């Protein structure tokens, strides 16, 4: 009996995991690229590193509670089944989450760190020995974290793509689709974070983010397009599965809310923002509300992409 087993908890986790992967990746890039021995885009690096752990931590909690026996989740970490995307993904997630928390710690301002440790109760006072700066680890962490953030961003797609029983998923492109969507959502979240800042708007760093996001969305678009075209030209089961978004119940969500509102509209807004820089080498427009809208749309689009894939995939089948 075909049932929908993975629901909103899983959709949320896929989105949150991807979001963290994107946040970390962009932050790591911003750290790794150096100007005069310092991270080239310090604000991006800092915001990214400090935001990165929380979505994936929340997502992981949701994931664990979705299990039939949540307290058995540790069993994921006593074996390594290389053929199971979920096994690989669990390990990746473990390491990645660790790295993001270390990253958070590395970028946490000294003052704030001292204040946080001041909250420790007397009995746990011995933990104060951890109130040290790991400032020096910033760049090494970024470099170490690159492969894991890519891993986390891509494996959620592999998770779905490896299931040959679900023709909606079983394509080579799903992994990349999710990866670039993840990076795009991370970038968008950073755009929002930078735009929310009441201090001077840092056009230079915003430009970096726009450039990244334009790249990511474009690549994503050119992954979704072949996915659709190849799918329509594929075996019958895949053609039938695609009907779910070509006339079926998920059509509106996919085309209006994901493609249009979640991909193309933000792309055009960002291109418009960047237009002066392309043509005149002048600085970018910065329409704060517009930027925030674009970023929010990207986040919405990223969420809905996963929503459509998780549900439509579980409905699709070989007859």
């Amino acid at each position, binding site marked *: 009996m075909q049932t929908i087993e993975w629901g909103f908890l899983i959709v949320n986790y896929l989105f949150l995991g991807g979001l963290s992967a994107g946040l970390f990746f962009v932050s790591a890039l911003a750290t790794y690229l150096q100007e005069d021995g310092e991270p080239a885009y310090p604000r991006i690096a800092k915001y990214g590193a400090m935001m990165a752990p929380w979505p994936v931590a929340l997502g992981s909690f949701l994931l664990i509670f979705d299990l039939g026996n949540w307290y058995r989740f540790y069993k994921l970490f006593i074996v390594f089944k290389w053929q199971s995307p979920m*096994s690989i993904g669990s390990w990746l997630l473990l390491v990645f989450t660790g790295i993001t928390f270390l990253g958070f710690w590395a970028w946490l301002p000294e003052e704030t760190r001292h204040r946080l440790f001041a909250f420790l109760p007397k009995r746990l006072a011995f933990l104060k020995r951890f109130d040290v700066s790991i400032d020096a680890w910033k760049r090494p962490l970024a470099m170490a974290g690159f492969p894991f953030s890519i891993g986390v961003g891509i494996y959620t797609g592999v998770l779905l793509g490896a*299931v040959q029983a679900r023709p909606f998923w079983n394509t080579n492109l799903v992994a990349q689709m999710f990866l670039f969507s993840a990076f795009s959502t991370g970038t968008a979240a950073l755009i929002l974070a930078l735009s929310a800042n009441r201090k001077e708007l840092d056009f230079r760093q915003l430009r970096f983010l726009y450039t990244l996001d334009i790249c990511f969305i474009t690549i994503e678009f050119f992954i979704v397009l072949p996915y659709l075209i190849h799918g329509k030209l594929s075996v019958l089961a895949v053609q039938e599965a695609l009907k779910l978004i070509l006339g079926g119940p998920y059509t509106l969500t996919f085309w209006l809310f994901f493609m249009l509102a979640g991909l193309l509209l933000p792309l055009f807004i960002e291109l418009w923002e960047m237009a002066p820089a392309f043509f005149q080498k002048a600085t970018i427009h910065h329409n704060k509300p517009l930027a925030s809208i674009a970023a929010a749309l990207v986040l919405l689009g990223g969420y809905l992409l996963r929503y459509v894939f998780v549900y439509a995939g579980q409905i699709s089948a*070989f007859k």
Partner: protein
Amino acid sequence: MADTKKKRYALVLDSKKCINCKACVVACKAENGVPVGKFRDWITEERRGTWPRLMATFDPEQCEHCANPSCVRVCPTGASWQRADGIVLVNYDDCIGCRYCMIACPYNARYFREDLGVVDKCTLCAHRVDKGGIPACVETCPSKVRVFGDLEDPSSDVSQLLNTRRFLVKKPETGNGPQLYYLL
């Protein structure tokens, strides 16, 4: 249990004779404590036509104990595993209830047990088979649709049927190598 001869259990189904009486479904439920609303085996109906040119056929279905089970491959803890004789089982103690295997099964043969928080499915009544018996569904069928046996044994009923009759398997295109053979 130290039987060194290689075995490969399978089911051959002469579903022309299936009359959708549900005996196998209830026998399995009784034998294996399957909760109401969940099914380890079921009858798939195909009905076509307009009055009075009509057809109806019935195919029993259950876990196919595949040669290449994707449910075993995707299980992150190894709870889903396959015996040397082909029977695919779930070790309740190791199952964390992630339900990845349910999604990976092209035949939708698995179900989730809310009471235990684990995934379950047809076991080919391994507990009966290991004592020399046959699965409950095979034993109870009034029309004698089902034949159970060892494909590695050329003298078994299943081997002889497959060697002398046309048959098909369901959804071969998924590459799982299903071991339920439907006689044509």
